[in-house]
């Protein structure tokens, strides 16, 4: 037992065994134990054949890859359990490439593990930091250089250099200015602001592309709408629909909890912005029993019967509502913009 202790160990093995002031002596590197392949030439030969076989399989797989590329149509589907119907070409190329690469790796690792030397060797570490002589020498050289430059002595040069270096990156920042326009009031308005009481804009059903009459809006349904004149072929369609999209619901007037909201609507038909006020996802999930609308991105939930008040989730304010009425032909129209900016909140947004 006692030979495990540092003093005894040092005595019996000479003094070169480090003790590090630890309770137990470091016995030093264990002796190398030969592997089967080190002592049995037949085992070594077998390992050699295994490695070569893996490399041969890799070659065959590469040939298979090229053959698949040349012979399988890109749109051919095959049924492979348990993946289901998959692209035959993708499967063949991926598997052959996978096997070709994997076998090279497996061969190399097997070779290293069975046939290359597994003698563990120690290597000395050297301190990262330089010794004192080198350090002092370098510092001295630097001091000489610094003194010769006069950097510390000529304060005016130093300070103006620092000033110029501090200012010159500003050119880079200024150059970024033309990346885009200034925000101005762009976020505060949508394209519905082209509507006036004299020139109202019709609400057009997003799916049917038809203007809507109040009787088209069924109680308990959710309809998506856009302004008349906004065609999908328009160049700026994406940009406009990102702000103009509407959610139309019809709620029994008795269920409406918010008087102002009811007034902005028409006979219980309410037009809310479809764009969530949290970070701008389109809201698409509606529960007709509770009149709750839920944004699928971050689960902000709005009570459409109560002025689209936020009842759950991370959104910070209600959905903006569009004032709607009907024109002389009985179509639903808007006569102005939303009562407040649509979409996510921002610094300049009035509150």
């Amino acid at each position: 037992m006692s030979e495990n202790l540092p003093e005894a160990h040092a005595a019996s093995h000479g003094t070169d065994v480090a003790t590090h002031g630890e309770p137990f002596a470091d016995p030093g590197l264990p002796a190398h134990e030969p592997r089967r392949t080190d002592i049995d030439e037949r085992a070594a030969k077998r390992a050699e054949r295994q490695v070569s076989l893996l490399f041969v399989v890799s070659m065959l797989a590469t040939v298979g890859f090229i053959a698949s590329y040349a012979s399988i149509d890109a749109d051919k589907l095959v049924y492979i359990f348990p993946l289901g119907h998959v692209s035959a070409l993708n499967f063949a190329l991926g598997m052959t490439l996978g096997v070709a690469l994997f076998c090279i790796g497996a061969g190399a690792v097997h070779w290293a593990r069975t046939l290359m030397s597994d003698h563990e060797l120690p290597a000395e570490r050297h301190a990262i930091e330089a010794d004192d002589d080198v350090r002092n020498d370098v510092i001295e050289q630097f001091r000489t250089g610094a003194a010769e430059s006069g950097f510390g002595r000529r304060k005016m040069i130093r300070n103006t250099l620092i000033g110029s270096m501090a200012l010159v990156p500003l050119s880079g920042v200024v150059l970024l200015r033309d990346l885009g326009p200034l925000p101005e009031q762009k976020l505060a308005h949508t394209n519905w602001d082209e509507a006036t009481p004299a020139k109202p804009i019709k609400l057009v059903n997003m799916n049917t592309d038809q203007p809507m009459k109040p009787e088209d809006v069924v109680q308990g349904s959710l309809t998506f709408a856009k302004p008349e004149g906004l065609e999908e072929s328009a160049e700026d369609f994406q940009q406009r629909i990102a702000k103009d999209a509407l959610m139309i619901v019809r709620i029994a007037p008795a269920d409406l909890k918010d008087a102002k909201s009811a007034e902005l609507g028409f006979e219980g038909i309410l037009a809310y912005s479809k764009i969530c006020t949290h970070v701008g996802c389109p809201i698409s999930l509606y529960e007709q029993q509770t009149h709750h609308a839920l944004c699928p991105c971050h689960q902000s939930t709005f009570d459409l019967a109560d002025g689209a008040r936020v009842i759950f989730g991370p959104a910070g304010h209600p959905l903006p509502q569009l004032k709607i009425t009907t024109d002389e032909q009985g179509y639903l129209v808007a006569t102005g913009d939303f009562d407040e900016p649509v979409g996510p909140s921002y610094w300049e947004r009035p509150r």
Partner: protein
Amino acid sequence: MSSASGTNNSASKPTSTRAKPANKAEATADWVDGRLGIYSLAKANLRKIFPDHWSFMLGEICLYSFIIIILTGVYLTLFFKPSMAEVVYHGSYLPLNGIKMSEAYASTMNISFEIRGGLLIRQIHHWAALVFVAAMLVHMMRVFFTGAFRKPREINWVFGFLLLVLGMFDGFFGYSLPDDLLSGTGIRFMEGAILAVPIVGTYIQMFLFGGEFPGTDIVPRFFTIHVLLIPGIMLGLLVAHLILVFYHKHTQWAGPGKTEKNVVGMPLMPVYMAKAGGFFFLVFGIIAAMSAIATINPIWAYGPYRPDQVSTDAQPDWYMGFSEGLIRIMPGWEISVWGGHTLNLGVMVPLAIFPAVLAAIAVYPFIESWVTGDKREHHILDRPRNAPVRTALGAAWISLYLILLVGGGNDLFATHLHLSINTITYTVRVGFFVVPVLTFIVTKRWCLGLQRRDKEKVLHGRESGIIKRLPHGEFVEVHTPLAQKDLHTLTAHEQPQPLELPAETDENGVARKAGVVTKARVKLSEGFYGEGNQIAKPTTEEYQEITSGHGHH
């Protein structure tokens, strides 16, 4: 000059003592050495010793998946058109025939359906990106829990950290490029987040998007950032990271013959060249096979992006899940400041916590060395149990990450486990504060328990499973004493002492008060190494007393 031709040329040449090259390869090496000086370089490195442990290959997976990403990425740029110009699709995927979409989306469809092998390369690129970030996280955990970040490797920790952050963001940018419904929703989220930045938010938004959302600039801009800017920086950092690994030499586990002054293992040539080189092919092969069987990001199923459409379970890739969790669990606080200005705390606070958590990870090595006052070099790794506070902190971080991941996937948890989404969100809100603390406490106690077990093993040996009956009738289990190498390995770790407050008066009797900072540091150090935070190692005396026959039980 003409006379010189008559003289013996070899006489005027400087005499070389260099041996004649034995073969063509040596001659070539000599030629290159004359130009590049490769022999001096190879002298230090050709037989460089690497220690062996399975966990050391995690970093290799990062490196190899990065190389795979670059290779496949170059291929994809040959076909991808980073443009938001509208086109009408007439490809071989019939469900989208005649639909308007951006060129970015159409060319991604083309890569997936028309170009032979394009789908495979796209999927290898995406899978490799996931493996890359996952491997970086796990590699970083390995470095953290073993204390491998300590002097002299703090700077390399920071390089690795930057690689992780850049990798995460480059993943986000790459995910956004196909301009499908899911990726467009991710960009919309980013736009909302930028708008929440006080004062300059709307300006950044306009400049980044070249106007209002979505405009026509964001995909080409992201493309440049994704393929040029970030990978360029990452490549530089990666090279620096590897140079430092070479320069510092690898860390190693404690064991017989291993000290702070040596590194024990096998040489680069041939063993590590074969193992590491082979491992690259293993990683590539596995990722290729994964891409053959597992579809990732089927953009054709989502459709092209439209700002007024969305699909359910809109979620980012998992590594961004913790920011998604933060944004989902935050209450929607919005306040008015300075008359008419809006501060969107509901988005701003999560976006501030996100970098704060990351920064805490980045500076951890500096905090630990400041608290413990440890300025020495460390090359022997800590077993996680022997650094209970560090291990518990790491576990608390991971638990925070996981709880936020649950928050980020609250809709999936709700639908798959039939739970109320509100309940999950409220639970995660509480869990955000409680779970890391509980994890810290449990992990620390667990580590201390394991330390006690080690001590027990050293002093009393290993349970052998053999029951012996003593002459007086008592049954005891025979314990096998440990071998010397195990005794050494189990007791090789250091047990630092906490810092102490300096004496209240100096040697001249003048009162010298410790500042607040010093006091805090002493307190923290006490928290690291003080009583109850480590189990004292067995001493020689304890061992002798037990093994001498007295008090043996």
